């Protein structure tokens, strides 16, 4: 148990420190990289909870794909940071108050009598050959197949909506349709005009 506790507290400390770093560093690239670090430590914590599949998905999806894209965007955009940070201290007391209230509320719920360890004991650890991924796959495609398909529909709608809202056929574009380009005939472009021969004025 001691070993797990050490890991838990180490990871938690790194997570909190890196999360703080995300919002305090001036350089957005550092912030993005620290977000990667916090995702990875978070995945570590999930591994402790025996949620292996989720932990790996977090690393693959968020660290591998989302954050890399994010870094690209951050590096490509020329963001004026001083403008973004304007009024930070002015709003800090208000934002801080809200954050404190939220922390208070969450701790009332989680530390109180309702969701404490007596009320919700930690589940028994599974056997070594227990496969989290297999169980998840089984549930998704059997019991939760309806919800799973609906989630797929949701993604389809997001795709349709994104295309409907952003695909524009601009009138003034200068792109040439390759099919037309290939099919072009000599007569389409070349006009042979017969002209009477003119005498040279010498």
């Amino acid at each position, binding site marked *: 148990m001691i070993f797990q506790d050490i890991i838990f507290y180490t990871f938690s400390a790194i997570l909190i420190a890196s999360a703080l770093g995300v919002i305090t560093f001036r350089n957005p690239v550092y912030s993005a990289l620290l977000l990667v670090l916090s995702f990875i430590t978070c995945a570590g914590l999930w591994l402790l909870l025996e949620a292996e599949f989720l932990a790996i998905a977090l690393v693959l999806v968020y660290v591998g794909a989302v954050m890399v894209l994010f870094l690209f965007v951050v590096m490509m955009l020329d963001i004026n940071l001083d403008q973004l940070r304007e009024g930070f201290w002015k709003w800090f007391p208000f934002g801080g108050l809200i954050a404190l209230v939220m922390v208070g509320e969450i701790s009332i719920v989680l530390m109180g009598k309702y969701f404490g360890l007596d009320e919700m004991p930690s589940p028994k650890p599974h056997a070594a050959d227990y496969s989290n991924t297999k169980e998840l796959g089984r549930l998704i495609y059997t019991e939760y*197949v309806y919800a799973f398909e609906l989630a797929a529909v949701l993604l389809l709608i997001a795709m349709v909506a994104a*295309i*409907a809202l952003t695909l524009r056929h601009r009138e003034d574009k200068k792109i040439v349709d390759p099919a037309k380009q290939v099919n072009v005939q000599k007569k389409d472009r070349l006009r042979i005009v017969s002209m009477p021969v003119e005498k040279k004025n010498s």
Partner: protein
Amino acid sequence: MSFMPPDFAPASSEIFMLIMVCVVMLADLTVGQNRRYVTYLLTQATLFGCAVLTFSSFSNEVVLTFSGMFVDDTLADTLKLMTYGTVSAVLIYSHTYIADRGMLRGEFFSLTLFATLGMMVMISASHFLTLYLGLEILSLSLYALVALRRDSVISTEAAMKFFVLGALASGFLLYGMSMIYGATGSLQVTEVAKAIQNGVNAKEVLVVGLVFIVAGISFKLSAAPFHMWAPDVYQGAPTAVTLFIGSAPKFAAFGFVMRLLIEGLEQMASDWQGMLVILAVMSMAIGNIAAIAQSNIKRMLAYSTISHMGFLLLGFISADANGYSSALFYVIAYVLMTLGTFAMIMLLCRNGFEAENISDFKGLSKRNAWYAFITLLLMFSLAGIPPMIGFYAKLAVLQAVVNAGFVWLAVVAVLFSLIGAFYYLRIIKFMYFDEPETNEPILLNNDVKILLNANGLAILVLGIFPQALMGISLYAIQNSM
């Protein structure tokens, strides 16, 4: 562990709908801009096909499938049939409008059908997960529909507000659901009801969850004080989309409330009754009073919606079958009136002209006496003047409230609808006693004409003979409880 494949038959209309949306989307790619009517007809055929499937599986039994995530009962079938009818009417009304404004694109139809699918899922959901997913399918399609006129600043702004506030509301709802899950240990609606009946240790957690769920629901219903998005969205969206947002999703919202508050949490009625009383009174007050100050008719109707949602909530407060069926009756009446009213607004629009202001109704009786008369019927009905359906709907709800012992609430409701009568009657005054600003003739296609006449007369006829519709409402509720 062996697994039995679920029974797909009860969900046949949903499956058909999903397949057909994909067909509509693909078919639309092959037809050109000049033959868009193919997409339109295919969409109508889809709705008709769904109606046939739902109607053929109409029964009094409550069938659960997909591991208790999907429920097919009389209430679901009734609400779904009405949703198809409403969506179909919306498409007929808005066809010319969207064609004139260059929005007649395949996405309009596919997103409308997706939204309809979302409503069907919500209506038939018996699991918090499917309730939420259905809601998101509906909302996501609606956000995109509002923003479809993307070069218009006001549409984009409306879509942005709708999206941000909608996401916030979904967050509320999810938080509430997670609390209830924490307290009862289940997400399945009937299991939750059972767990609460057997007694839950953490009653406070349940109540906290309930507060968030009620807040989320009132966001979606646009009940005050969570109504801020409605006026902007109603005004900013293209009128055809406003018509859609204002009509069919109300059935889904009714189904949502029935599944979540009634079937799942009816044991906590004493807790949510008080919340609904506050929401209802605030909605009626803010809706009716703010509507007076509006000069934009779509904004005015948005506030009118808010007040009507307050009335609808009154139906739930009594927490018995009579109250629910009067609420169902109210929704049906409200959707009929909304359809007619927005159809009238679109009828005043011409190519290149948006009828947005109440003054656009000036002198309508001199331009076309018959349409002015239908508008008169609609406004009387919205104001709740007998013998229109709107009067009977209000009466039924008030009866339920009085029976539940909230006489003061009924008095408040009547007072506010009296205030509300002012702005409905103002439109009638504009139509009959003012000179028209233009003499442009009102041209309509035959299908719109027939539907509009049927719509207007239904408001009158169903108001005089409400028993049949009331009977259907009561039957649907009683068979599903």
